[in-house]
């Protein structure tokens, strides 16, 4: 191992020089490039495909044997369908007029055949909780997707090129890390709500605030993967064959550095869903009449003594959703990186 790092550090200087030359030569190299491309694309790509196929098919084989993965995947499938088509789970749409009867306000589970009872406005609580899945799933996936794109982009550039850009991104990361997530989100949401483009606190504002505060770990993870990969032999081989920096990053480094980011991302979806619920609970996330588990728990807090069911049902749905993503992430990590087990 030490021998290898030594060799790599020795060769890094001439290689960088070489990278600069290939980059400079690229535009004028029209006739050569097509002749090179098939071979260049064929050799490393086919080995990479083989490698990838075996990595992912290995992972898949291991995942299928993992009972926790089956449980988590099933739960997430149900929750995704619930988010996309809540009508399949309940015939009552709580957003319609006239569905809620104030006379039923805070009736306990079992009244009039309502499984989960009724909420403060006398709406059927089961259907309200089912409709809450949509917001959580959308925010969780959108925020992690956005944060992953920012993190991978900055991490790839910082890790591949190093230098002042790396330093700048590292300081920026430190600064944003210093702000506690919920506190930063409170400030940002107040700010974004005043913006003409966002206007009010809705899905877009909450997602934007959370993306801006959660990209750092993706960036750090991806940056360190890129640094460990950029000195491998297949990257040197690609470079020797005249591949440009952008081609090396997109075709060789990103696909091979993605696994840890995907694992962390899966677990992070759970954390983001919890963060959205926390913000809505604090009254600074989504606003009524949006349907969100955080809002439901918020309005339940004054009735803990008399109507604890208002607290329990959204809490259970919220925790099970977060749990499913964490279990899925754990299973993915075990399958993709046996060293981490």
């Amino acid at each position, binding site marked *: 191992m030490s021998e290898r790092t030594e060799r790599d550090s020795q060769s890094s200087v001439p290689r960088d020089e070489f990278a600069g030359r290939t980059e400079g030569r690229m535009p004028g190299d029209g006739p050569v490039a097509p002749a090179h491309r098939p071979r260049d694309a064929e050799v490393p790509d086919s080995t990479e495909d083989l490698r990838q196929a075996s990595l992912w098919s290995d992972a898949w084989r291991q995942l299928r044997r993992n009972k926790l993965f089956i449980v988590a995947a099933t739960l997430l499938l149900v929750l995704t369908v619930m988010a996309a088509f809540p009508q399949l789970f309940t015939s009552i749409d709580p957003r319609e007029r006239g569905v809620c009867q104030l006379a039923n306000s805070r009736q306990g589970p079992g009244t009039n055949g309502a499984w989960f009872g009724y909420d403060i406005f006398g709406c059927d609580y089961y259907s309200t909780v089912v409709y809450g899945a949509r917001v959580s799933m959308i925010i969780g996936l959108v925020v992690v997707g956005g944060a992953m794109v920012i993190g991978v982009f900055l991490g790839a550039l910082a890790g591949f090129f190093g230098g002042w850009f790396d330093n700048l991104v590292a300081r920026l990361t430190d*600064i944003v890390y210093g702000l*506690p997530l919920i506190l930063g989100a409170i400030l940002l949401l107040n700010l974004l709500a005043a913006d003409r483009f966002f206007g009010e606190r809705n899905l877009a504002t909450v997602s934007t605030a959370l993306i801006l505060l959660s990209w750092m770990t993706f960036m750090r993870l991806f940056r360190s993967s890129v640094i460990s990969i950029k000195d491998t032999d297949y990257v040197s081989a690609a470079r020797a064959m005249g591949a440009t920096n952008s081609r090396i990053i997109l075709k060789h480094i990103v696909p091979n550095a993605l696994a840890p980011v995907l694992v962390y991302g899966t677990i992070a979806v759970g954390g983001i869903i919890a963060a959205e619920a926390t913000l809505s609970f604090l009254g600074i996330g989504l606003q009524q009449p949006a349907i969100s588990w955080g809002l439901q728990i918020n309005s339940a807090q004054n009735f803990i003594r008399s109507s604890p069911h208002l607290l329990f049902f959204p809490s259970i749905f919220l925790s099970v959703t977060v749990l499913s993503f964490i279990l899925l992430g754990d299973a993915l990590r075990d399958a993709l990186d046996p060293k981490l087990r």
Partner: protein
Amino acid sequence: MARYIARRLLLAIPVLIGASFLIFAMVFALPGDPIRALSGDRPLSPSVQAQLRADYNLDDPLPIQYAKYVGNLLQGDLGTDFSGRPVSDIIKQSLPVTVKLALTALVFEAVFGLVAGILAGIRRKSFFDSLVLVSTTLIVSIPVFVLGFLAQYFLGLRLGLFPIAGLTEGFRSYLLPGFVLAALSLAYIARLTRTSLVENLRNDYVRTAKAKGLTPLSIVGKHTLRNSLIPVVTFLGVDLGVLLSGAIVTEGIFNLPGLGRAVFNAVNSQEGSVVVGIVTLFVFVYIFFNLLVDVLYAALDPRIRYE
């Protein structure tokens, strides 16, 4: 060592300035006119409004406002809120509550997290090990505010074991919120300790110690634990930020008059100077503890040397 600390302190300065400017910019770009909000239904006369604006530097452009703020800060003046109360007073009053809460949480984390992690690590694949794995996963999936309400309902209301809100019962008032605040990190610490202990128990020096005839207790106590605690100490440094963030939620649920609640109220009433003061304090504490953790590395692991 001294040079390393000096370099880290120098590196912390731009981070601290960047973070406080970011907070400052976000707070003073907040919607609404705080002076108008202050005066309520009966508008103040224009001259009074102008006087107030001048007093709080509201007419200056942002960088100048910030420079004036930092200038005052360096002289120990954090400014006042809009009713004239010094921000340092607010911090003095609410800081002890948050510190006690965070310390209670840290004690819970260290005691329960470490013990659970060590026992699970020693008896790997036993019933206790599985119990720790399952319960930590469950705890991690329950958001802090949900856990707070569940603890309030079951331990406070149903069983009547703990006071559920306020500070009326002294030390006992901190137990439930402290536990709720600690829960998430407690689970992480238990897992981290377990994993790192299991890894270290595979090392050659453990076999040597066993061959020398040491008891399992002294192998773990004298040799393995010291090595296993390094990642746990790192985690505790990062964790402090999580504790401060969690304090906003926990103090709200359990009605504790700490920094978290003060900053939350200040954001809602647009008391810019209070928000900036408290959040800058949070960031400072976070950076300081991370530095402390890095220095502690050397004490725990003699292999790590700073040039």
